[in-house]
């Protein structure tokens, strides 16, 4: 067989298909949403490719393009307010997270504070809870009939301690549920900042706290700044919290974009908001890389020096108490959701008036479909992203395909709601009318989670030596057969760990689900969302508990798998 032909039939063809996939479902939608921001009407990209008439229409649309939407963005009140509010929210959240994390991270990295292990373990809890559930938990704690409000009034307060339906409410939820994203990088930053410098400072007579302020803290600063940016990005693209908690008069860009498209079908408005969201996220991502670029990783790869842990009780006990309070809040929120799910009724009292499993029974009779949908959709996304990620990592590692490497980082930057809007617009009409199908939902989930999957598979791929593959080829196997019989099985642990991660995050996924899921494919997250909107709190609670349990179990399995992952290295 001709060498070229063989290559084309095997891996070459697959590479082409993957490029096609990214082009169709990532690049074209993003470009198209950018164009719509100018044309103010959806343009039919694929129609233009198959029909000359449609092409004419599209060309006319492009000819009539205006800057109206951009003007509206920066003059028309609500869009601009939305952007400013969102930026403000993200800034507040990231600063507060930083402030909260400094003592906890220091405590974990540098002291022998009591209950350190327990606190570290509990700090991972907020990560497994989807934000719309945390937001909803805040309602049933701090809302008009919440138990916190009850206690607050009993203590002489008036009204609500904090109004959950406000900017403050949104900020508090995000702070307490996003802080773990910052905590672990900061612990690492404290661990690596040069201990010998600190010792030198101490030898020169500097006091402990002075050393912290003059040496330890500045050394950890670059790490902290990049962490701040991570939180900023997470908060900025978060959809779950604001969609539940934002009152009608509070403009936030994610919520506005959602309302423009699902309420008013204002394509142009949604498009401009999408473009702005992507731009902000892009700048933040760029800044983050910029900060990390000149960071010296020698310290990281060098032998970890033995840190002398601070045992001073006057320091460690307050640290433990502080950390305890911070982790307690998300846990109380989860307990509240659980209590609500087994409550007969729960009025303005500290505890429910009675207990029952009826809500679970209801869910397993009437809402089983949602659970099934979630599992099917997540399963589909798992398979699709596993297949794509496996081949992508092959091309990235073995053929050094920088284009594919770049393409798989794009979804990291694009906020979920922005990506959803781009897809809806692009696949709204024939010849490729996919909006409202389970397929486009699965594709959206897969692309969004692909970066995590690829990270996992690229790691495993790197650990497989090239000559193992060449050995298979020299024994007569085509590159495709070698990839499937030798490389594939060796990558299995990496694929499995990545798959579970994808599965878990898809089940938690809010923005794409709420925006794109058709009624007959409504997943659990959409069902909970709708229940909360309809104030059906009990079934929302029960569904949330089931969701969290599924997530917890899968996460535990994933941790097990990635722990036993090092055997081939």
């Amino acid at each position, binding site marked *: 067989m001709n060498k070229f032909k063989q290559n084309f039939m095997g891996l070459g063809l697959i590479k082409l298909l993957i490029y096609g996939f990214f082009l169709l479902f990532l690049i074209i939608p993003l470009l198209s949403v950018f164009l719509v921001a100018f044309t103010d009407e959806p343009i039919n990209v694929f129609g233009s490719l198959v029909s000359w008439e449609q092409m004419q229409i599209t060309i006319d649309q492009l000819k009539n393009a205006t800057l109206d939407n951009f003007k509206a963005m920066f003059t028309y009140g609500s869009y601009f307010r939305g952007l400013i509010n969102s930026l403000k929210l993200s800034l507040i959240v990231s600063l507060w997270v930083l402030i909260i994390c400094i003592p906890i991270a220091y405590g974990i990295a540098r002291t022998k504070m009591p209950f350190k292990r327990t606190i570290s373990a509990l700090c991972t809890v907020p990560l497994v809870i989807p934000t719309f559930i945390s937001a909803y938990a805040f309602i049933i704690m701090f809302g008009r009939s919440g138990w916190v409000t009850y206690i607050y009034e009993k203590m002489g307060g008036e009204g609500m301690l904090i109004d959950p339906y406000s900017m403050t409410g949104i900020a508090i939820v995000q702070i307490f549920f996003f802080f773990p994203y910052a905590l672990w990088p900061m612990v690492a930053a404290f661990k690596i900042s040069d201990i010998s410098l600190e010792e030198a400072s101490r030898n020169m007579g500097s006091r402990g706290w002075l050393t912290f302020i003059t040496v330890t803290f500045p050394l950890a600063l670059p790490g902290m700044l990049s962490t701040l940016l991570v939180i900023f990005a997470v908060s900025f693209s978060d959809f779950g919290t604001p969609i539940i908690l934002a009152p009608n008069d509070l403009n936030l860009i994610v919520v506005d974009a959602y309302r423009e498209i699902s309420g008013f079908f204002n394509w142009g408005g949604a498009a401009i908001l999408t473009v702005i969201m992507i731009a902000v996220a892009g700048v933040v991502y760029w800044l983050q890389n910029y900060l990390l670029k000149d960071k010296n990783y020698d310290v990281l790869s060098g032998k970890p020096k033995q840190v002398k842990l601070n045992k001073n009780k006057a320091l460690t006990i307050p640290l433990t108490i502080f950390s305890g309070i911070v982790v307690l809040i998300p846990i109380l929120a989860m307990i509240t959701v659980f209590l609500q799910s087994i409550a007969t009724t729960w009025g303005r009292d500290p505890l429910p008036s009675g207990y029952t499993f009826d809500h679970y029974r209801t869910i397993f009779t009437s809402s089983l479909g949602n659970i099934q949908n979630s599992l099917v959709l997540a399963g589909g996304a798992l398979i699709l992203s596993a297949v794509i990620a496996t081949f992508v990592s092959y091309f990235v590692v073995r053929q050094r395909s920088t284009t594919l490497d770049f393409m798989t980082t794009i979804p990291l930057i694009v906020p979920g709601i922005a990506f959803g809007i781009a897809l809806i617009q692009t696949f709204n009409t024939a010849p490729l009318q996919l909006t409202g199908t389970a397929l486009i939902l699965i594709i959206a989930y897969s692309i969004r989670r692909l970066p995590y999957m690829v990270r996992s598979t690229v790691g495993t791929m790197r650990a497989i030596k090239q*000559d193992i593959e060449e*050995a298979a080829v*020299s024994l007569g*196997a*085509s590159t495709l057969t070698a990839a499937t*019989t030798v490389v594939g099985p*060796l990558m299995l642990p990496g694929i499995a760990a990545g798959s579970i991660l994808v599965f878990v995050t898809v089940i938690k996924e809010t923005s794409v689900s709420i925006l794109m899921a058709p009624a007959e494919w409504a997943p659990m997250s959409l069902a909970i969302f709708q229940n909360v909107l309809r104030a059906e709190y009990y079934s929302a609670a029960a569904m949330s508990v089931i969701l969290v349990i599924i997530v917890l179990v899968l996460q535990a399995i994933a941790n097990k798998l990635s722990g036993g992952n090092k055997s081939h290295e």
Partner: protein
Amino acid sequence: MGSVLIEQLRKDFSGLTVLQDINLDIKEGEFFALLGPSGCGKTTTMRCIAGFETPTSGTIKIGDKNVANLAPNERNCGMVFQSYALFPHMNVFDNVAYSLNIKELKKSNFFKKAGVYTRMLNSKIVKYPQHIERKVMDILEYVELTEHAKKLTSELSGGQQQRVALARALVMEPEVLLMDEPLSNLDLKLRHTMRNTIRRIQQDLKITTIFVTHDQEEAMSMADRIAVMKDGKILQVGTPTDLYSNPNTPFIADFVGTSNILSGKVVGSEKGETIVQIGNQQIKSSAQTDKKDVQVIIRPENINVLNGAPDNFGNSFEGTIHLATYLGSIVRYDVRVGEHQLLIDTTYESGDSIKKNGSTIRLGVSPERVLLI
């Protein structure tokens, strides 16, 4: 089994020439070694033959067939990698059976294909047919691994892994067997045993073998012919004795065995012998040359110590012993002659006395043993 013919092979890596003017004519059934220092392009040459690198120019023929348009998996070259490259998720048997599975895969119908595929992923689900079973067990017996057939490759010693790699390559009955420094991961003793094993198998099967090494002793003791490479070029091709007694460059004289290499000028000839001036000494050589500036090569074992014996060697000098090293069956003297330093090997028999440092000796070299390059 096939011959390998390489003509004018050249390979560039992003503008840098790594191989040029490579011409080799390897005969059927020959054991051919590629010898050269690190980075000289041995591996690249081998990878071009196997098809893992595409030559920039030149032709490669395996058994009279131009392989330019053949993918690596169509060339039927058995390869043994330096790292062995065994499949870590398969046991010894599955490793060896891999190429046989691939052959089945190529010729069977869809359902059988699916079966073979499954077997390659998990041999517990689909059993091997009898002819594969027999073939694999035969070759395992041949490399003395029968009792390890069901072990994972990670449970084997280095030498055993090496033999699995060999068996895996041999079972496909390749046209040529390519081995890239297969012994360099083994300890000295095992290396000597494996040399014999590989040589025995090669002679038994009469399989054309190309063997890459940077160890001249390995090449000399195993190969029928050797090509010495340096900086991407082939300097000389010949049998081990050829290379040893008639090196065509000082580099080879030094790389293949040890040599005394001295620069000199031809000053005349007498009775068919060339007279060369080295510093203030003259030396006679029976080699003929029309060059003026020459390199004079003398092997250490061809310099004789004249313990008062008559001087009938044609060339003789006086020298001072600088250092004596006892190497078992020989004693190596580092001798100063005028401003030159010479290495001299003398056979040592028990009871002989080793000469003291600083003592003066007379040396003799017959003109036939003096090479001029």
